């Protein structure tokens, strides 16, 4: 049994709980994370020489953050932890990693992918100006480096992070010039029913909003972004209010994001089957209730499987590891799995509530003006994508990529994929699922050509 090879990619809450579960079963998992410290997104650690308290850094989540950090710290010696290591491919039952220009191949009997999520973005005129950041980047700057992305910041988009990050900025003393939410307040109120399954989270969301209002931060719901203005740098955001009036807010930075998208490249490279998620209008790897993917030996947990938030990530990490142990023929507490499964279902209902409260604004993506860049890596405008689709014919997204280069750059379509799919579907007069999804291609992130093979481990 000691020579069973179990691997976890991602040392966020999901990956840490999965690793812990493997250790409890007497295994020594390999834990791979590209970050330099464990904790993942929400419980991202500050650099060693920084001395902010858990309360300052994580607010309501301080206790959980500490628990997660301590758990992983106690696992030292019992896990083979490989930080600053990119899992760049999965092939033939092995994970391929790159650390500091050294490549390793790690064969596995079971692999838990706990790769988290990234911001879901869509192009807005001016979004390529310096000073425009993703919501996540804005938060990372604050969390990891204790800096703000600007002096006067507009947060634009939708999703729970919109309010959380705005609040964190305001609390840290930044001037939050406005919070612009594309979702209508009425939708958020309607979705409340679904979200009561997790009253704690719901209360936090309301708290952030109330705090922003109390600090005099203008919060607008149901907005239509018009343009991020500026010549060499962000200077203002223009938008239309719900009633159609045009407004302009001066600022020197914008944090934008439209909820999250699961980081699914590795699952795709492992040839897992995907399903279209109607609620989120995006594709995700197919899993059973425990996190088993369609490919034997591969398990998905946390936001990388479906965006359910940090608490659910912990539970799904445990559940996925238990499922793996079960499939490996090791004894597991079936009751414990049942409990976790039930809790996941409760989370699932909350997730649907969130998706309804903060819907993906497909119509904004479909309406992007022709001169706006959609694909930043390859500098492809919405107009070029539309004319390719019309003149050359592209019934699905990979064809549009082949003919127009959209999604062909180093981000692998993470930034432009959602919007490109909407634009293509719009041109074709189809639903977005009809144009498919960009196929994942290795490497997950760029690989140095200076790389060498490491000694066998």
């Amino acid at each position: 049994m000691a020579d069973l090879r179990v691997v976890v990619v991602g040392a966020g809450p999901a990956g840490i709980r999965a690793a812990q579960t493997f250790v409890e079963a007497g295994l020594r998992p390999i834990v791979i994370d590209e970050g330099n410290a464990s904790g993942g997104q929400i419980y991202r650690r500050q650099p060693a020489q920084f001395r902010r308290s858990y309360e300052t850094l994580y607010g309501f989540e301080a206790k959980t953050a500490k628990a997660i950090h301590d758990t992983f710290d106690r696992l030292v010696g019992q896990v083979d932890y490989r930080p600053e290591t990119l899992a760049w491919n999965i092939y033939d039952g092995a994970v391929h990693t790159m650390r500091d220009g050294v490549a390793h191949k790690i064969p596995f009997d079971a692999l838990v992918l706990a790769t988290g999520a990234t911001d879901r973005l869509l192009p807005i005129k001016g979004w390529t100006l310096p000073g425009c950041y993703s919501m996540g980047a804005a938060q990372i700057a604050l969390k990891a480096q204790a800096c703000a992305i600007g002096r006067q910041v507009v947060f634009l988009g939708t999703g729970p992070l919109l309010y959380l990050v705005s609040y964190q900025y305001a609390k840290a003393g930044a001037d939050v010039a406005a919070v612009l939410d594309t979702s209508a307040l009425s939708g958020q109120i309607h979705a409340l029913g679904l979200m009561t399954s997790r009253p704690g989270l719901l209360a936090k969301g309301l708290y952030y909003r109330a705090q922003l209002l109390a600090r005099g931060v203008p919060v607008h719901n149901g907005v239509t972004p018009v343009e991020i203005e500026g010549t060499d740098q962000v200077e203002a955001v223009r938008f239309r209010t719900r009633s159609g009036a045009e407004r302009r807010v001066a600022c020197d930075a914008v944090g934008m994001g439209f909820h999250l998208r699961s980081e699914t490249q590795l699952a795709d490279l492992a040839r897992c089957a995907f399903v279209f998620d109607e609620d989120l209008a995006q594709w995700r790897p197919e899993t059973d209730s425990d996190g088993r993917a369609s490919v034997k030996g591969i398990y998905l947990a946390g936001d990388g499987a479906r965006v359910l938030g940090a608490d659910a990530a912990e539970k799904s990490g445990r559940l996925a590891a238990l499922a793996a142990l079960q499939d490996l023929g090791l004894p597991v507490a079936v009751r414990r799995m049942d409990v976790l499964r039930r809790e996941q279902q409760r989370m699932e209902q909350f997730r649907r509530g969130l998706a309804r409260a903060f819907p993906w604004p497909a119509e904004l993506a479909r309406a992007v003006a022709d001169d706006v860049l959609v694909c930043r890596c390859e500098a492809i405008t919405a107009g070029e994508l539309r004319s390719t689709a019309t003149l050359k014919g592209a019934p699905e997204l990979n064809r549009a990529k082949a003919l127009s280069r959209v999604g062909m750059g180093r981000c692998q379509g993470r930034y432009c994929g959602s919007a490109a799919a909407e634009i293509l579907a719009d041109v074709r007069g189809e639903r977005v699922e009809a144009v498919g999804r960009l196929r994942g291609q290795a490497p997950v992130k760029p690989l140095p050509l200076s790389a060498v093979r490491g000694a066998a481990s």
Partner: protein
Amino acid sequence: MENASADNAADVIIVGGGLMGASAAFFLRKRGRSVILLERGLIGQQASGTNFGNVRRQGRYLTQLPLAHRSREIWSRLPELIGEDCEFVPSGHLRVCFTQEQAGRLENYAHDAKAYGLELEILSANALRSRFPYVGHEAIAGSYAPLDGHANPRLTAPAFGRAARREGASVEENAEVLSIGKVGEDFHVETRDRGTFRAPTILVTSGAWAGAMSSRFGEPVPLVARGPQMGVTEPLPYRIAPVLGVSSPLDLETVYLRQVTRGNIVFGGGNRGPVDLEACRAYVDPENTLNQMPQLRRLLPGIAAVRIIRVWSGVESYLPDDLPIMGPSEKVSGLFYAFGFCGAGFQVGPAVGDVMAELIDTGRTSLPIDAYRIGRFAQQKAA
């Protein structure tokens, strides 16, 4: 069986819409033949759309040079013929080698190629350094083909497909051929969900999947499907005009690269990867990517500072003598084949369509294709 209406009957049905099928459709229309092109997926989605993009004559078997010349001439005329250049740039092609023995081979090839109308410049180590200073110093000699170059494979076959359609061909995508049967003088071609098509002449250009079809006509061939391994770097300032390649008897050393004007360096070579004919996909073995890295650094040391952003492969088919199959069936009249291009069909693709159109239209070809007879393997077996 349903009745074939005028819509699903034509002079020629082409099975498989890669570059071979698409260019044949175009040239058959130019000759006034009515054409139906049936493609399982989208035009140029397989080998023709995923290849490296080398428009290279040097290094081909000498006997293939007439076909390659004919194609090179078509490549220059693409804008007038099909309305776009497919990013073809005749920016030169440079092969380098690491051993004296191989340098001798390059020299011999250059000497022999001259008689076939291909002018190559043999470069000493010093000449390499001064003309192509970015090439690694392990290279001791080179052979330069000034008029070869590269093009964008993703654009080429679809462009031929659209041009064929404009010329009046009926180009059917998502039309997988399930069976081909001969009924009297006509072939009946059964498709998945798209009904039956009828023609007195069939051209099989279904690439790696053609072996299964020729077998059903009693002409099996030892076709092997493999996937050459490709990759591309992040974009850099445009500096490298020619396609660069290593000439070596070792597969592992045989890497090649080209910089596109947008700046990315596309590369490939080394060992090939596996193919799944059922799934219609070829895969990149990560070990191959890692093996390519030191070889690419030998060829172009500066590449060590760059990063790979994407790798891919494509389904290509090979025959034991490294030559394709082109010509009429030797068992069934009205049936023609053009497949198995052994990793080198992109450059010759436009001429393959032209020559097959000529063969089907006139019963003969103005350049020799006898070396590509399908019967050559049957003879071997018998011997």
